[in-house]
């Protein structure tokens, strides 16, 4: 199948949401309600992303006993703890490493990794590229809020240039990582990106990512209002999520006429999708042949 065709088709469909699903989905079935209200700051986009993920899980009808949420350290790592499933809070930057072992040992489980931009790209950057390279059946949701929020607002690999943080008091001068291009180049089977404001579309993207058999990487553009937004005078959370939306263009639009007027806009939607063999299956087949030879 032609890849571009596939992408545009998915891009157009993703804003649809069925009324039945919206009505029947009760998020409290998937939350550890005794821990609420959660620890996230007012207006933190991680909560919206969490809802999208849980809704996608609901739509795919995944049994909570077969679902494992692996999360790292940081604001994003803590969101995993609110999910009423098998959750696994790991060391900084290593959720993908833990998830790799888990997915190889227990292929019957659905492994979803929740990680942040610092967790995934700085401390665990190495694990991201190798998880992408192997194409093991893991879904990785990276919540990108451009900052290390929990530790006090240090610059992360995705902090845009000229942005102020505690470690870049005169504006960041480092070039940023495009996490989706990194994962795609490293060989991830499914790569997507969306903003939290596009809620039903984000849910559909995550649903497609979870359904994909192989390593699927989804970057969710989230907002850190309390630290990053305040320091850079980006307004309250509504303004922040609206400006994030305006800085993105759906990939299905292609090279539209207004591109010259909107330079440096990031693409959203499904950015890459291929049919590389899934590593777990290859690994097991390989093990079987060796065992057969040994006999």
């Amino acid at each position, binding site marked *: 199948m032609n890849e571009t065709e596939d992408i545009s088709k998915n891009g157009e469909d993703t804003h649809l949401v069925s*009324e039945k699903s*919206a*009505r029947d989905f*009760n*998020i*409290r079935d998937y*939350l550890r*309600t*005794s821990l*609420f*209200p*959660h620890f*996230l*700051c*007012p*207006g*933190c*986009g*991680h*909560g*919206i992303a969490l*809802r999208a993920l849980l809704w996608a899980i609901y739509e795919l009808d995944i049994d909570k006993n077969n679902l494992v949420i692996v999360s790292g350290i940081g604001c994003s790592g803590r969101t995993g703890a609110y999910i009423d499933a098998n959750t696994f809070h790991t060391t900084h930057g290593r959720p993908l490493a833990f998830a790799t072992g888990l997915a190889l040992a227990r292929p019957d489980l659905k492994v979803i990794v929740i990680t942040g931009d610092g967790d995934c790209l700085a401390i665990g950057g190495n694990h991201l590229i190798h998880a992408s390279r192997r194409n093991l059946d893991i879904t990785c949701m990276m919540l990108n809020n451009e900052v290390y929020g929990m530790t006090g607002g240090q610059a992360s690999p995705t902090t845009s240039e000229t942005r102020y943080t505690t470690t870049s008091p005169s504006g960041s001068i480092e070039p940023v990582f495009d996490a989706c291009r990194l994962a795609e180049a490293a060989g991830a089977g499914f790569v997507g990106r969306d903003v*939290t*404001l596009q*809620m*039903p579309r984000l849910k559909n993207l995550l649903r497609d990512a979870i359904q994909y058999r192989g390593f699927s990487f989804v970057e969710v553009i989230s907002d850190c*209002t309390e630290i990053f937004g305040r320091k850079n005078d980006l307004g*309250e*959370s*509504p303004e922040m*999520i609206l400006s994030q939306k305006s800085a993105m263009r759906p990939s299905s639009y292609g090279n539209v006429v207004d591109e010259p007027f909107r330079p440096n806009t990031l693409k959203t939607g499904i950015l890459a999708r291929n049919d590389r063999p899934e590593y777990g299956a290859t690994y097991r087949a390989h093990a079987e042949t060796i065992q057969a030879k040994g006999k």
Partner: protein
Amino acid sequence: MNKQEKPNSITNVLIVGVGGQGVIMVSKVLARLCQRHGFDVKQSEVHGMAKRGGVVFSHVRFGEKIWSPTVSEGNADVLLALEWAEALRWLHYLKPKTGTFIADTQHIVPPFACLKRHRGAEQRYAQETPEEIVSQVAKGYALDATGIATELGNFRVSNTVLLGTLSTALAFDEADWRDTLAELVPPKTIDTNLEAFQKGRDWVEEVKKTPKKEKNTKKPNKIAPYQQQVKIQNDIQQDLIPVITAAWCKGCDICVKMCPERCLKLNTKEVVELVEPERCTGCRICEWLCPDFAIDVVKVPTPLNEEASKSKPASLPETV
């Protein structure tokens, strides 16, 4: 009727409707027919901004010599309306004592007729019934042309049904009408159109035969097919309302700013409140964008317009 018989009279016909109904088609047929009989004809129309559902009107004037292309108020000999509200809107153009009024009783409700945007809210549409109007004009025909056309298998020929009715009001030969009609409609639809034309004429014959009171025994076709669809959606969403778990809300203002109806507000404790429940359409945007999971758009047992406040506490989900 021909030029010699009525040398100095001018006939004004005003055809009104909404976009997509075929107003221009009817006026074209009429204008061509008049030209064939050697009349001077002027037709002027406004359809530019009509799109589908907007107002379209067409003035047709014919006689010995026509100067003005438009019909002035109170001067139309025939008012032909393809839609009921349009018929009422243009009624003052009709000649008070001698004008003929022909209208379809079909209702096409424009989106802005629904001022309250709550699901299932009542639409503000003309309340006048066809009987009322027909009794007030000199000569009135109100028929369910769309219903007749639907029976024929194609609702789009409703304008031809009305053309058939119009043909009885003007003194041209029936055969001429048919020829002109067949000439102008797409070749594939000639048979259906001629049949619809005949139905329109038959309807008038029937009305003339039966006593006046029994006119319009048929109920007007109030709901167009697409409106029925809308109604079904209304029934589903009518009774949705956001229920707020105050203990979880952190007052981030996202739902307040994103609500398309502006029916949420932060109170003095920085906790969101539903201040105008009657405006809520149940669109779920607040639920989806709440980062604190504090809003659940749920069904309330009774519709909002019937004392929703009483039933609200019963539907509150379990809170912590």
